[in-house]
């Protein structure tokens, strides 16, 4: 009986792993296709589609745009999130619970609706579609995330260190920069990296708010119009690789520190 359960469990787990990895394996395998269609039979391996991606100026500039938007919007999100988390955690403010609720509210609204709202507003205010507009949208979705992560990590025990610094005559900005930021570094990094991955992968807001200069997910979307194409496989595999590097880095740097 026990052995039968174990056996069934293994079969089931392997089947689910198979389901989870099937599309990724097919994607990467046919990115190495030598002929023009990413469908069986496999004719590779060949790197011609990776060359095609790297020599495509639209894709490479979209990649740079994506990185730029991701880094800058994440910096803005984590800065605003950290300052507000510090303010709410250390001081008694009237209506604090409602205001904190307001900051985290965008987490419950889908990206499509946030993008639509900004599109309507910007259209009405005459703000042109641009990477900046998309970046503003990315801060809207990532600020609540950064705030929630950092606020939840602001324990009372850290207050004492700050008090000690103040008692020793440190000015408020000095306490912030030399005590609070270093103590909160893991939460700040976590917020930053999560924001990076979400912004890097975000599609619908960028799709609605950019026009000529755009981000990588939107450019990949445009590529899809040409149907199944090994070039899309190649760029998809590259994006996958970047995400994996980010996640592994995240695992190794942040989760290792956790026991400390």
């Amino acid at each position: 009986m026990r052995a039968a359960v174990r056996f069934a469990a293994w079969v089931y787990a392997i089947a689910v792993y198979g389901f989870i990895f099937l599309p990724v394996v097919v994607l990467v395998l046919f990115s190495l296709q030598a002929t023009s269609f990413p469908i069986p039979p496999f004719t590779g391996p060949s790197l011609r589609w990776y060359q095609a991606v790297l020599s495509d100026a639209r894709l490479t500039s979209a990649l740079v745009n994506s990185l730029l938007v991701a880094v800058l919007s994440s910096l803005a999100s984590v800065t605003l999130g950290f300052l507000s988390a510090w303010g709410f955690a250390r001081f008694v403010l009237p209506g604090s619970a409602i205001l904190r609720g307001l900051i985290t509210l965008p987490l419950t609204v889908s990206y499509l609706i946030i993008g639509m709202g900004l599109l309507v507003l910007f259209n009405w205010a005459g703000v042109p579609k641009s990477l900046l507009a998309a970046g503003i949208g990315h801060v809207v979705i990532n600020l609540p995330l950064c705030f929630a992560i950092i606020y939840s990590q602001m324990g009372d025990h850290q207050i004492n260190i700050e008090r000690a610094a103040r008692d020793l005559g440190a000015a408020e900005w000095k306490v912030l920069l030399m005590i609070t930021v270093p103590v909160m570094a893991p939460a700040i990094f976590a917020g930053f990296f999560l924001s990076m991955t979400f912004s890097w992968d975000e599609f619908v807001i960028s799709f609605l708010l950019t026009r000529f200069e755009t981000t990588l997910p939107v450019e990949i979307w445009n590529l899809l119009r040409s149907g199944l194409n090994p070039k899309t496989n190649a760029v998809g595999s590259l994006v996958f690789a970047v995400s994996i590097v980010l996640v592994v880095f995240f695992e190794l740097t942040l989760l290792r520190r956790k026991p400390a």
Partner: protein
Amino acid sequence: MASAGNNSSALPWALVTPALAWTLLFFVLPFIAMGFSSLTAHEGRGFTLANYSQFFTDPSYWRAMVNSLEVTAIVTVISILLAYPFAWILAEQVPERWQRLALMLAVLPFWTSYVVRSYSWLLVLAQNGVINRALTGIGLVGEPLQLANTRFATVTGFVHFFVMLLTLTIFANLKQLSPSYRKAAADLGAGPVRTFVHVVLPLTLPGIMVGTFLTFVLCIGDYITPQILGGNNELLMPQLVMMQIGRRGDFPLASALSIILMAVVTIAYLACARWLKIERA
């Protein structure tokens, strides 16, 4: 927690104001703008409820909402049924030291680009894609099946994403359960099946509800998966919204449809919240 109590009462406000201002300016204000827009006509002046009445009277618009709710319900149920046993195996059957790795592998494709993930399923499900080649190859079917551009494809793409998400949340839930509950149940004479049904399952139910709500919200608001995998054979709500902007530039109607979609999510949230409270009592 007050700590400083020093002379600068302006400081706390200086800290929280930028984030609040950002939220008001780029989240609340757009929402108000969308509300106003939804009450105007695409062409013409004055306020009107025409955009809303169009949704409630035009059956093809209704159909999109019904499709969305159906797909979301199907996806949620299948994802939970697939993910729960999987998370259980990871938490109970996989040796402790391999669990982190097993879990990380199980959610690895979660971190690939969302657009690319849907495209990958298109490769798998296409007319001459991997699955059809395999099926015709072993002679199971004579003609390739129409898998892409169907509801089946949309559901498959969604389930793939949400199985990973739910595995994460349910796994975390199972690991939080103290083993003493199970020991107590065993001591009182319950077999593994009874222990699971009467002890483990009820204790993980709140976690399942959180996962269900997350699945519902993310699924019903997603444009990418139905557009890439389902095509335009049957429209879901987000596709209908995007269509108003893309083809016709009809912002008022798109705004009205967005607000209706959000209202549905809010109702689901309230329903879930109530259910959760009852569950805990």
